[in-house]
């Protein structure tokens, strides 16, 4: 023991102790501080998936449009909470008799947040970016592939000419594919807010939140909040806890419905249970020999008590569906009970198929609805004598690679949340490898039908074909479960667009 040691030792401990006491004091003081009186009207939304970029055209994720669409960026036409087409930047539009030329009349009042007027040439520039910028996602470019030319004869008019009539194109224009950017900021969309909506985004705290601020010069009905924050939670329980602790005004979509009982106090909370475009689809790999047999697929469908599945997996929320369509789709046909639950018949059908069933590999993304459904399905298939193994794959990377790209699976479960996505079954290269020429012909015919009535009839037939062939098992429609403080009004229960639409939202 030397003198040096003595001094070093003591002073180090003293300093450490002092630092600790100061820190704890600070923490305690802060814990007791009351929140300062709020003069700005703030609104906080808890959400689960964070955008990958602030330029929503560069990422296929739905998290970007959730914040940006209709709130920061506007489109020529929009879809309202009931799934109806409505004017937005365009006051009205005309369609030529052959269904190929669309003329939009832009609202003369419309301006961007920067003060620039929304003109026909701004639409042309935005479409140029969407259709030809290398950064734009493949999905968007595919949606706009039918467009031949976009021209602006004058400031108040923009004309789209299509290569062929398309029933889907106008619908796509209500979403990301129809966004109109401020032409002065269009090159900087990843770093600057460049829209005409009631809010402008002002901060992105990666891993934590996106902050929107009121656009004081908004051309339409003035926004009701000064500041709107989207907070992101990867953990469903953390999201619920924040709501229960009073930190949030809204949970945009509950990821753990079994937790809803915690929000049953109606004097504090309102729970909205609406429709989405999400079909929770139990997809078969049609390249697996055993699953090529239609009777095997039918037997599997019959073995699953989907009503009980919804009850255990999603707390009874959500709706039974029987094909690749949801009730808010205009062409929806109710096939929910077309193949009813029947264990005895499932066993008989399986036996009559003569297929020696191998152990099936259920490989699902590690997402709550999928892993829980997988556990239910594994137990149900065991009842009719089919052995299974369950893998949970990190989503998106591992699932995309092994199931989606390499087809290394027998059964998988994914919620297909894209709107009107029944045509995915017409693509034999898609990860189910479902190859039914009759269905493919039907879908191709439908899109080019000259009248809406003919289109609706074709699409109804298409749904029946899928159900009859047991092309997949549609477990349930993912419900849009929203929890709000009971002072919040004006939220649409349905999530029929990608947008978390703030325009009608208010707080009493």
């Amino acid at each position, binding site marked *: 023991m030397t003198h040096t040691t003595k001094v070093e030792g003591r002073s180090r401990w003293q300093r450490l102790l002092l630092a600790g006491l100061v820190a704890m004091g600070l923490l305690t003081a802060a814990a007791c501080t009351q929140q300062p009186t709020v003069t700005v009207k703030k609104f906080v939304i808890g959400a689960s998936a964070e955008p990958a970029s602030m330029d929503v055209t560069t990422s296929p994720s739905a998290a970007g449009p959730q914040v940006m669409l209709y709130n920061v960026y506007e489109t020529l036409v929009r879809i309202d909470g009931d799934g109806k087409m409505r004017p937005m930047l365009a006051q009205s539009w005309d369609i030529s008799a052959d269904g190929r030329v669309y003329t939009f009349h832009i609202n003369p009042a419309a301006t961007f947040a920067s003060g620039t007027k929304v003109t026909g040439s701004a639409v042309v520039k935005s479409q140029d970016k969407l259709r030809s910028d290398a950064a734009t996602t493949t999905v968007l470019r595919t949606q706009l592939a039918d467009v031949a030319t976009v021209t602006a004869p004058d400031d108040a008019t923009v004309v789209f000419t299509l290569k062929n009539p398309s029933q889907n194109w106008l619908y796509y224009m209500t979403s990301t594919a129809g966004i109109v950017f401020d032409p002065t900021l269009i090159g900087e969309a990843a770093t600057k807010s460049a829209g005409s909506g009631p809010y402008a985004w002002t901060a992105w705290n990666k891993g934590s939140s996106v902050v929107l601020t009121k656009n004081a010069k908004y051309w339409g009905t003035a926004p009701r909040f000064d500041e709107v924050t989207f907070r992101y939670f990867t953990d469903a329980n953390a999201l*619920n806890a924040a709501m229960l602790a009073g930190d949030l005004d809204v949970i945009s979509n509950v990821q*753990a419905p079994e937790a809803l009982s915690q929000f049953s106090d109606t004097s504090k909370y309102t729970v909205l249970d609406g429709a989405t475009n999400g079909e929770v689809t139990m997809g078969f790999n049609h390249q697996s020999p055993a699953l090529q047999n239609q009777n095997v697929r039918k037997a599997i469908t019959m073995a699953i008590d989907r009503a009980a599945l919804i009850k255990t997996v999603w707390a009874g929320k959500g709706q039974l569906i029987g094909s690749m369509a949801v009730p808010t789709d205009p062409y929806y046909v109710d096939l929910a009970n077309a193949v009813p639950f029947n264990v005895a018949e499932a066993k008989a059908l399986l036996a009559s198929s003569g297929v020696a069933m191998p152990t099936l590999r259920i490989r699902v993304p590690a997402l709550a609805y999928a892993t829980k459904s997988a556990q239910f399905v594994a137990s149900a298939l*065991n009842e009719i004598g089919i052995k299974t193994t369950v*893998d*949970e794959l*990190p989503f998106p990377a591992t699932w995309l690679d092994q199931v989606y790209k390499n087809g290394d699976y027998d059964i998988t479960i994914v919620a297909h949340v894209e709107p009107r996505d029944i045509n995915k079954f017409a693509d034999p290269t898609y990860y189910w490898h479902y190859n039914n020429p009759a269905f493919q012909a039907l879908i191709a015919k439908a899109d080019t039908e000259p009248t809406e009535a003919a289109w609706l009839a074709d699409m109804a037939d298409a749904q029946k074909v899928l159900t009859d062939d047991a092309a997949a098992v549609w477990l349930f429609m993912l419900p849009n479960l929203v929890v709000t403080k009971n002072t919040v009004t004006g939220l649409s229960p349905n999530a029929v667009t990608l947008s978390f639409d703030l325009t009608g939202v208010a707080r009493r």
Partner: protein
Amino acid sequence: MKRFTLVVGLVLVCSVVLTALVSLVWTPFDPIRVVAADALLKPGWPHLLGTDAFGIDIVSRLMIGAQTTLQVGIIAVSIAAVVGVPLGVLAGQGSGWVSEVVMRASDVVYAFPALLLAILFAAAFGGSTWTAMAAIGIATIPAFARVARAGTLHVMASDYVLAARSCGTSRMGIAVRHVMPNIAPLIGVQASVAFATAILAEAGLSFLGLGTRPPTPTWGRMLRDAQNLLFGDPLQSLWPGLAIALAVLGFNLLGDGLRDYLDPQLREVS
């Protein structure tokens, strides 16, 4: 007091082992079969601790969970001991540079905590009991190497080893005849403590969704599934949480008890 620690540790560990053994042949209910109508029953009869969201008996799941817990602990600790102990003995017996290389390599591995390693493994090979066990095992190697080296240094300095060396006994012979039997108690203590760490690490991994796959019940997984009900039905997370805590407590106490009970001379080097 020393005896008390050892006895409580032994009782807790034995109950975990017994539960796991019984669950091999009998559980009150099927631990995997979903019974939708029985979901989320409160504790009572016949479901003593109630049922989970799938209508599965919680007692049955806890019993099967004990198997997984022991499996993870045994395999992870075995990996760590089988690799770590020979390395530690080698480092303790060997010349300066051998010792230096082994210990520095073990420092590098030590900088990869089990969970960090497991996150990487789970991403590479998919989360499973095996990636969890491998990651926990590898990350625990340094702890065994250190203890084995310290014990070996101590034994090598003893008079009887000096005597054996002067008689020309080979290094291998000394390691087998003198070092191993003498450090075995130390390794036993370390194994018990490492077992506790392994249980906690597996629970953490399951909580992050990187552990054992369903439908195999594990305590960590049960805790994760129950956390969404924490504020409405807290009992759901109490049971698996208690099971984890009691098992970890048991192995830690057993380790401490053993250490105090065994040759007090060895205390200095551990």
